[in-house]
């Protein structure tokens, strides 16, 4: 019981990692990128390819694909999203879904139906574990969880304390007014998409390290990311972190109840949170609600 809880929290770290890019883009640009999961799988393949070709550690390869994914993010914003958002809120949904289909099938064309994993390139690390209070905890899932904390913490710090972060927050809050005070909303949107894609690159790598992936694994990753974002309340990145962990715990509970209940547990938890958000106080399940007092203090001060 204790063991499955710990494993769930570690898995939650992965969900948080894959969700934070989706939530970040949603917060800044009001776009849910349906190609999010497919792009994560694309980066997993890129890391796999580089690791295999240059005989590097995956941890080095991921550093090499960060700039590639950042450029892809910038292009995504400039070529597709910018145009799509002008046509209303529905077009980005359609175009990013089309993009997801293209990416998935190109990956299938290129890499075939075999599942891949990055764990063979890790040597001993893929099975090494810590023993704490009689529980065996894999080193790799711990690394993924810590990465999630570092990535989300880093994003949070950038948003809070840097000039770039202020500009991003201002653009997210009201792009037109931000433009009036001299913020280049187009540039900010491009940078935000690039940042989001870098987190996507890290999450794709994390998926490859923790387990296996194939060309069509993008859809499920998108659903996990979306569920974690909704459970977390979409309004704060730490909320999304919590959402990832709650999702993973719900899945483990589902698996305890029924052998096929792993995914269903997560889906039902998502529905419960959605239901609560719609019919009760919209914010009850978000961090914002619980820290509302402090925020109010900030506003009045």
């Amino acid at each position: 019981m204790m063991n499955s809880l710990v494993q769930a929290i570690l898995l939650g770290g992965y969900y948080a990692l894959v969700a934070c890019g989706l939530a970040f883009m949603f917060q800044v640009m009001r776009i849910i990128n349906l190609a999010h999961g497919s792009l994560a799988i694309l980066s997993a393949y890129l890391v796999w390819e580089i690791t295999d070709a240059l005989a590097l550690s995956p941890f080095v390869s991921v550093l090499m694909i960060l700039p590639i994914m950042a450029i892809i993010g910038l292009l995504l914003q400039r070529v597709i999203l910018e145009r799509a958002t002008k046509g209303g809120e529905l077009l980005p949904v359609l175009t990013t879904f089309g993009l997801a289909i293209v990416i998935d099938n190109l990956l299938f064309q290129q890499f075939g139906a075999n599942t891949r994993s990055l764990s063979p390139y890790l040597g001993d690390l893929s099975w090494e574990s810590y023993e704490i209070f009689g529980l065996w905890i894999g080193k790799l899932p711990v690394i993924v969880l810590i990465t999630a904390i570092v990535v989300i913490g880093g994003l949070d710090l950038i948003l809070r304390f840097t000039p770039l972060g202020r500009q991003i927050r201002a653009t997210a809050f009201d792009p037109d007014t931000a433009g009036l005070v001299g913020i280049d909303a187009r540039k900010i949107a491009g940078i935000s998409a690039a940042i989001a894609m870098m987190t996507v690159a890290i999450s794709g790598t994390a998926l490859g390290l923790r387990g296996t992936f194939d060309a069509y694994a993008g859809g499920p990753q998108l659903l996990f990311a979306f569920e974690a974002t909704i459970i977390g309340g979409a309004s704060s990145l730490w909320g999304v972190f919590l959402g990832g962990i709650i999702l993973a715990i719900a899945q483990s509970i589902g698996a305890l109840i029924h052998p096929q209940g792993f995914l269903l547990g997560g889906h039902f938890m998502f529905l419960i949170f959605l239901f609560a958000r719609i019919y009760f106080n919209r914010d009850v399940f978000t961090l914002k609600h619980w820290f509302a007092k402090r925020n109010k203090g900030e506003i009045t001060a």
Partner: protein
Amino acid sequence: MKIKRSNAYSKVTLYVVAAVFIALILLPSFASNNVMERLTVLFIYIIMAAMWNTLAGFGGLISIGQQLFFGLGAYATIRITNMAISPFVALLIAACLVGLLSWPISTFMLRLKAGEFAIGMWVLASIGHLLVNLDPLIQGETGISLIALNQYAIESRRLLIYFAALVSMSGLLLGLFYLLRSKAGIAMQAIRDNEEAADSIGVDAEKVKKWFFIFAAFGTALAGALWLAQASSFQPKTYFSVQWTAYMIFMVLVGGLGRFEGAILGALLFFVVETWFAATGVWYLVGLGAVAMLCSLFFPKGIWGVIETRLSITLIPVGYQVTGLKPDSHSKNK
């Protein structure tokens, strides 16, 4: 100034539609088996496109989870035929049941906006898939065949499925036609054009969207049930695949989002593209995704939208047409 519902084109269309319908009824007496089977598939595509268009084009609701209703329609047909009911009765009951089920779903899901609704529906489709897998009758991903169809000889079975698809398609299109011309439909088209403005003149968007959602669920379920009759085996993974929604999106985006004629044109195009290129496998799917993406970016109204604005032709009159505007009433405003 004159306001009317139909024009010379729509009268011609009426005669053409009637002629095509009669031809399709008479067709089985001379067409080959292969032609009939392919036409059955085409009818199902037209249903799927028209239903997705109902939701997205007229309701402004982009769903990535219509495979939920497609899969449930097929599953319910399996379940009902298992109770020794004729499969052709079962598919209608199944679609009605799925339509009923979509009512509580709609009260819940329609509160979501844009992208949240889209992926939310996808999650529901995934739930539907997982729950159907739990039914021992289905035997997990192995699936099951619609054995009840074997009580019909192969020839009469083909004929019955053909007519079932033809009648379903005609019925749904006719239903959609009258739905769009009804008060609710006019309201829906007002919402499509501008939700805030429609709201300000007293259009109850919630209620109208709900009816369109249920209608689309019913039609998509019927398409799923017909597909099952046509393919005769049910594997949850195939029927609950997001691929179906991808096809619907392709058909509607290329044909013309929010245009009655657009969905039919899109389905015809998809049918032709599939016949020619499906053998290329993955590249065909890459092409579908790319074309859908480009269409939504550059031709958001699709091929029919271009035809309609360039030539101002309306074949199927679901709105009102204004003619005889005096030119000076325009120039004064300038």
